[in-house]
């Protein structure tokens, strides 16, 4: 298994997909050989110097801790790392939608983590999308976005629940339905209460939620608080002086309004009803 590149940059940067491609060698995808880091430094676009958020050391130290703590069960690292990556790398959604940032993180800063987490037993290979794929597939951006979409204001508790279920982040993260915060929280509540657990059940439920969404406007049924730019900006500003993120307790997210509890309850009940009548593969309807 590879280690980190000999030369890890001190600052995060932007690495375009075209430039990244030459570094995705078969040796890297098999986890056998990693670039030295020197050639990559030549093809990146730098980020502003005066912003502490782009320091790579806090992230490098997080992934090292994750590899140590989850040595025997690599998938378990997702639920631990997602809130902590999010609270370390304080980004706006605009910044987080730029795939070049994630390309750089995966290829220049922590390719060893990508291999450690995603080397497939069956093919003995890492899927290239884990390095530079869509945001819901790429190794680090999927965790950041899971944290962003499942956190309830400053509370990362629901993120731990969501990321503790591989099926949820695998099948639901790319769906538009969780863009509505109360819907995301209702899904977590169903998961937490044990009402849905397996991938098939989750899939059946999300298909049913989408189908019902054609006739019910969830924004009207379960309203959300309006987004406030200032709370998030303050939190991002605090990144300049923030200490390393807590390892043993959950960090705090941006001080945004939580989802109205009433809306989550309404949707939880509605989805429970949908789920009881939804066709789920492998589930008998009469039992």
């Amino acid at each position: 298994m590879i280690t980190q590149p000999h030369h890890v940059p001190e600052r995060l940067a932007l690495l375009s997909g075209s430039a990244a491609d030459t570094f995705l060698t078969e040796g890297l995808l098999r986890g056998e050989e990693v670039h030295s880091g020197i050639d990559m430094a030549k093809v990146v676009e730098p980020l502003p110097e005066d912003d502490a958020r782009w320091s790579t050391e806090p992230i490098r130290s997080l992934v090292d801790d994750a590899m140590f703590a989850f040595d025997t069960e690599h998938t378990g690292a997702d639920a631990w790392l997602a809130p902590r990556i999010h609270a370390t790398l304080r980004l706006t959604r605009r910044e987080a939608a730029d795939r070049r940032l994630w390309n750089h993180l995966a290829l220049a800063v922590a390719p060893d983590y990508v291999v450690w987490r995603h080397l497939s037993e069956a093919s003995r290979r890492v899927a290239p999308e884990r390095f530079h794929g869509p945001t819901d597939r790429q190794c680090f951006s999927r965790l950041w976005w899971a944290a962003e979409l499942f956190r309830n204001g400053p509370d990362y508790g629901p993120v731990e629940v969501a990321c503790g279920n591989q099926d949820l982040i695998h099948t639901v993260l790319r769906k538009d339905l969780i863009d509505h915060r109360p819907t995301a929280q209702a899904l977590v509540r169903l998961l937490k209460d044990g009402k849905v657990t397996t991938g098939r059940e989750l899939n059946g439920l999300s298909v049913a939620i989408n189908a019902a969404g054609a006739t019910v406007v969830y924004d009207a049924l379960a309203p959300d608080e309006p987004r406030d730019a200032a709370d998030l900006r303050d939190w991002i500003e605090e990144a300049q002086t923030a200490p390393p993120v807590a390892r043993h307790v959950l960090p705090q997210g941006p001080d945004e309004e939580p989802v109205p509890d009433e809306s989550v309850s309404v949707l939880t009940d509605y989805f429970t009803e949908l789920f009881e009548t939804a066709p789920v593969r492998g589930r008998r309807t009469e039992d």
Partner: protein
Amino acid sequence: MKIYPYKRLGRPITLRVTSVSLKLSDGTRDPLDTSAYSTQEQAVALGVAGHSDWVSATIGLSATLPPGADAPDAAWSDLRVLAVLTDGETNVRTSTPLTRDAEGSRDWSGHLEVLRDDHLGRASLSAYAVGTVDGVRGRSITETDRSWIVDTVSDEPVRGLRLDVRKASFNKSSREWLRAYGDAPWLVDTTARVPTVFVNTDIDGIVGLLDSNGSGVESKARDLLVAQMATDVWTAVFHGAIGDLEVEPDGGPVFPTDWQGEVLREMLPDVVPGVHVEEALRRVHRRRTGEAGWGELQTRIHYAAVRRADAAKAVGFMIRSLERTNRESET
């Protein structure tokens, strides 16, 4: 056509943008003039005033419901109208309620906030009328049939896909990866946020030709060159979009929500004519991942690209221009 388990209004909501203003980082407001939005294109361009430091935009909206929304025998009660802004790239979904202009009026209006930090490129804006039907709250009664596009970067309100054209010396560019392509006049990069054409300024005279705006043969040659580039772009972008498709557990492809989705929606009717775009996408995906038919499809993809690039027009004008030059040199 969708079937609904309750009565709805048969006609869509008409949604209009009535004003746009930007809040700048120093706290001041800049009202944008009407060039920032186009009712014809159903597009808003927040980049028109050239501000890069805006924090949020306030978009004034007016929605007109079709007749019948307030009929005394309507199947719904508690009628409400809301505007919803979505962005597939940043997973943003926000909504704002509209209020009725006057009692009995079919016009509803309100304001929607667009936060700069929440968008990288384009968001989509639609309106829904909802009511309580048979005890179920939030039932959709009717909606807009075509969303507005809110482009947070563009300086011109147009719906169509915008390309980014950049000039660079491939041999000396800070983008070191371009150096490997030093002898190419242009390159298409589809991995960027919007498809980008890099024009190689090392090719002597190419910039002069591309910037020419006269009316002679030169400008026709330029248009032909641009059409050729555009054909390359559309072809590359189509392949990029098809190659990046995500797949549902049942094997069916998912329609992308970003510009790749726009490209596919635009080109698929020419690639697989006569079927709905969703079905067309499934067929193309089957051909690419299946055992046969991908090669055969290339002609149709090329055709769709050529049409979009207006290549026939460019060739036609070039030929006429050459004919005229030849005639003039003979006399």
